[in-house]
């Protein structure tokens, strides 16, 4: 490991982030600019930014670690993340763009005309956002431990300060360009090392014992039907419930362009996941000794210098470290933009100054949590966030767009039921480690918490004496009517 090279790689990414942020600052002046980039971002830029924001530590480092550790089961995660955007595309992309709201709580309030439903939604958004930022900070800590020999907390604090500063300074316009840049950086930071390693492997005389490196019981055939189905349901539906995913569609100029953007996003994240999965396959061949819970997440960082001793390997490692940092920066920044948007409108006055203050507050909370918890597997901790989002926000967003009889009471009941059921089963699972027959249902609760939340929402809405707001039809018409060309 060449510490100087690695640190300069990370410093370059940071510098580029700050520079693009400052460049963005000069063109973002109004409150609208700060929140949603005034809805004038082009589809390609927007798609790069959405992809850049979506590809987090969980996939950049976590995916190859997961494939190394658990085998083909790890491939389900990126497939679910990519397919989650298919559901975003078909169900919510264009309608949410046309809703004219800034954040999910804005949408819920406008659709259901209820301040109470809005507050519950905001709370869910905050919890999901914070849960999602913690693994990003952990990832940053792990990276700095491996590439620069710094203690775990140093990376966590460094990235938190950086993001809070960037978001407070630039708002979303700056963040859009930062993230578009970071998508391409992340793609090449894995693609180039993968290409070099594959080239070296095919050239050299590497004896691959297929049966031991790719054993059948860790392979595609050895999957558990319930666990896989439940995980996939959570990943598919969870994407539309993530606060930083939906806020992005508000930056598309029209519903049609929001759809075009989403198709591009699916192509872009799929390309990245294919590369990342390839890295996992290569890791199984070249680094089986790293297949331990803590070490597996570092495999993408360690691999290049193993294959190429000397300067070339060190340069590749620095590139991967820079890409990993881009991953933490992009995802956390996107999350903090949307969280700060929610907090500044719900708690403060919604002005630019309160947005800045909220950005700092929203970074401080997950930082404290990250400092006092020990990093678990990055891939699976991000998976848990999807389960929670899919059980709370996704049913409400989905029904809000498509079902005219949804009421505020039904939405609140559904969100609370889904959230509590999900949190309880995860807490019991972590504390007890499973209770006999119920163990798999507690470890992967999505398959029953999502239908439960949906059912409660529908039943409470239908029996609600108040009924849906009188303007529902008009609002739904607005969501689904195409803009005049």
């Amino acid at each position, binding site marked *: 490991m060449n510490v100087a090279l690695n640190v300069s790689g990370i410093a370059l990414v940071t510098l580029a982030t700050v520079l693009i942020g400052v460049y963005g600052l000069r063109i973002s002046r109004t409150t609208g600019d700060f929140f949603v980039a005034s809805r004038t971002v082009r589809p390609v830029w927007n798609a790069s930014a959405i992809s850049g924001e979506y590809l987090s530590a969980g996939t950049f480092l976590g995916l190859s670690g997961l494939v190394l550790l658990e085998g*083909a089961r790890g*491939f389900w995660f990126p*497939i679910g993340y*990519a*397919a989650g*955007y*298919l*559901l975003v*595309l*078909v*169900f919510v992309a*264009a309608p949410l763009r046309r809703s004219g709201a800034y954040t999910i709580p804005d949408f819920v309030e406008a659709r259901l005309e209820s301040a109470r439903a809005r507050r519950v939604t905001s709370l869910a958004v905050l919890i999901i956002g914070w849960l999602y930022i913690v693994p990003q900070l952990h990832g940053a800590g792990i990276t700095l431990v491996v590439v620069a020999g710094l203690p775990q907390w140093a990376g966590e604090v460094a990235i938190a300060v950086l993001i809070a500063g960037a978001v407070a300074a630039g708002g979303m316009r700056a963040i859009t360009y930062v993230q578009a840049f970071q998508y391409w950086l992340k793609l090449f930071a894995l693609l180039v090392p993968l290409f070099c390693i594959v080239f070296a*492997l*095919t050239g050299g005389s*590497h004896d*691959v014992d*297929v049966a031991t490196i*790719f054993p*059948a019981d860790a*392979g*595609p*055939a050895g*999957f558990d039907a319930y666990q896989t189905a439940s995980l996939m349901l959570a990943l598919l539906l969870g994407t539309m419930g993530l606060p930083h995913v939906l806020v992005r569609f508000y930056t598309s100029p029209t519903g*049609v362009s929001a*759809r*075009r953007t*989403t*198709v591009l996003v*699916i*192509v872009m994240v*799929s390309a990245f*996941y*294919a590369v990342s*999965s*390839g890295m*996992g*396959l290569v890791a199984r*061949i070249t680094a089986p000794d790293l297949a331990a819970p803590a070490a597996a997440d570092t495999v993408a960082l360690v691999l290049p210098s193993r294959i190429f001793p000397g300067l070339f390997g060190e340069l590749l490692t620095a590139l991967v470290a820079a890409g990993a940092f881009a991953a933490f920066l992009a995802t956390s920044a996107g999350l903090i933009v949307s969280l700060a948007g929610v907090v500044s409108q719900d708690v403060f006055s919604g002005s630019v100054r309160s947005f800045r203050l909220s950005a700092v507050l929203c970074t401080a909370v997950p930082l404290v949590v990250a400092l006092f918890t020990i990093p678990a597997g990055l891939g699976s901790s991000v998976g848990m966030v999807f389960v929670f989002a899919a059980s709370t926000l996704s049913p409400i967003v989905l029904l809000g767009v*498509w079902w005219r009889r949804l009421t505020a009471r039904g939405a609140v009941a559904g969100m609370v039921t889904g959230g509590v059921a999900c949190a309880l089963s995860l807490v019991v699972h972590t504390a007890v480690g499973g209770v006999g027959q119920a163990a798999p249902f507690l470890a992967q609760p999505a398959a029953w918490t999502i239908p439960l939340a949906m059912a409660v929402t529908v039943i409470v809405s239908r029996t609600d004496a108040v009924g849906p707001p*009188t*303007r*529902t*039809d*008009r609002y*739904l*018409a607005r969501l*689904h*009517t*195409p803009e005049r*060309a």
Partner: protein
Amino acid sequence: MNQHPARRVRVSAGPAAASGQAPTRGIALPGAPAQDADAVYVRALMRSQLRLALGAVAGFVVVTGMLTLIIALIPAIDEVVVVGLPLTWILHAFAFYPVIIFFALLYARGAARNERAFRALRDRG
């Protein structure tokens, strides 16, 4: 001044409102659901978009499920080794993304077509 003023009585609508009939007999109230041609077209558009969305998701689930079963249950594929990797692992790692992209494109085209049809209907009417 009367020492015992008549008690105030709450005046409310009669049984007509309870039976769901609009008290204005066809005159639209502000905020009342609009039942003009546009609203009918929008409902039709919503239905066709929802049908298209559910169809795309169902198609995706069926194809993905089939691909999963093929990879998991046909042992002959597991024997095939391509460039040092078992074919099942390669398929699992890379084969699902083209399926996702295919259904995304299919939906986007269908949704744009539905909206064109809606526009044509609205502009003619």
